[in-house]
């Protein structure tokens, strides 16, 4: 069985950016839970910053098993609200809904040009789709945009 987990590249997950209160406590809990279900050896699909998030999550989890495992770091748009990093873009919600539906269906489909405009971090998701265009059944552990950036924590097993 191949296991795949998608987490967002939120830098707030990194220990070096910890505050007294955790602004992403629910996201962190979901991501640690999902990554904990991967096998011992994990292939990471991520950019440079995303790789740091992946390294933190892998370090922070005890994993067992020899299933082929992938940890993908990516997220939706960063233009969901007036206070979002990229300010509000009315196309962001629809973009995230479409991308989210494709992820839940296990068949990631990304409008790369629109993703660039909406500051969506999708390179690793595109890479994943190129590796495998049918990921199997999805378990959605987190789906929200608490700070104007769309985050998903989704696990697939096939």
């Amino acid at each position: 069985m191949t296991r795949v987990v998608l987490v967002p590249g939120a830098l707030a997950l990194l220990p070096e950016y910890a505050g007294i209160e955790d602004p992403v406590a629910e996201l962190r809990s979901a991501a640690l839970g999902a990554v904990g279900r991967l096998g011992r050896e994990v292939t990471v699909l991520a950019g440079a910053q995303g790789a740091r998030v992946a390294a933190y999550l892998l370090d922070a989890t005890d994993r067992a098993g020899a299933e082929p495992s992938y940890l993908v770091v990516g997220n939706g748009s960063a233009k969901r609200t007036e206070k979002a990093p990229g300010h509000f873009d009315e196309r962001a919600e629809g973009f995230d809904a479409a991308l989210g539906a494709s992820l839940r269906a296990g068949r990631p489909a990304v409008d790369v040009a629109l993703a660039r405009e909406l500051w969506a971090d999708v390179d690793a998701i595109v890479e994943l789709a190129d590796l495998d265009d049918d990921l199997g059944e999805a378990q959605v552990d987190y789906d929200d945009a608490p700070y104007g950036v769309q985050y998903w924590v989704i696990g697939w097993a096939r």
Partner: protein
Amino acid sequence: MTLRLGRHPFADDATLMMAIVNRTPDSFFDRGATWEEDKAFDRVTQVVAEGAEIVDIGGIKAAPGAEIGEEEERARVVDFVARVRESFPSVVISVDTWRASVGDAVCAAGADLLNDAWGGADPELVDVAAAYGAAIVCTHTGGVTPRTRPYRIEYDDVVRAAIDDTVAYAERAVAAGVARESVVIDPAHDFGKNTFHSLELTRRLGEMVDTGWPVLVSLSNKDFVGESLDLPVGERLTGTLAATAVCALAGARVYRVHQVVETRQTVDMVETIAGRRLPQRAIRGLQ
């Protein structure tokens, strides 16, 4: 250094707010606002709600004035300490007194800390602290008599004098049986000092911190702030907070204050800048 104030331990990096509660009719800042016992109790309730870890209860104003005998001082503070102890078991109760007999009575009533603002004028105060397992604040006054103003006092080096006297007092307290982690030193701004002395102590507070003893600063609305800015008592908060920030950056641990909320924010901000405290909650740019 870990700090233990009576029954209350604090972490190495904790900064503490000590709120002033006057059971006096004539202290310089509040001018008798909490002279009535119920008003003083309301003040305790308020500062505890504001997050003060320590209340410093005093029955005699620092400045010269009508003599308050031991019996009168006890009448002002002992039962009040017992009432605060009963109502607020988790707050540290400090009593601002130089008299061993008063210290004995307030410790029996539940005080955790004796704040000897007059620098060991009564040599038996340390024995009282030791007997009750209480903590003690060792201040520098340059050897002046309690409740006198400084008059033409000069020092070769005021910081050296403050360090030498407070550390000697601290060691005397430990020798008398006070726990080493229950001793705090205080340069005592404006006590036996002119404005230039208090400014130099503020500027060089790091030298006191380097002794390893936890340092208390009592800056709140004092004359060195007023003279620096030419402002009367009611308009010294901003200057007080600026002095507080300088002391916080140098590593002071305890802040004796009138305004708890403002001082806590100032100290927390400086501690966060210094990298000794995390931001409360950081998400900007990190989403």
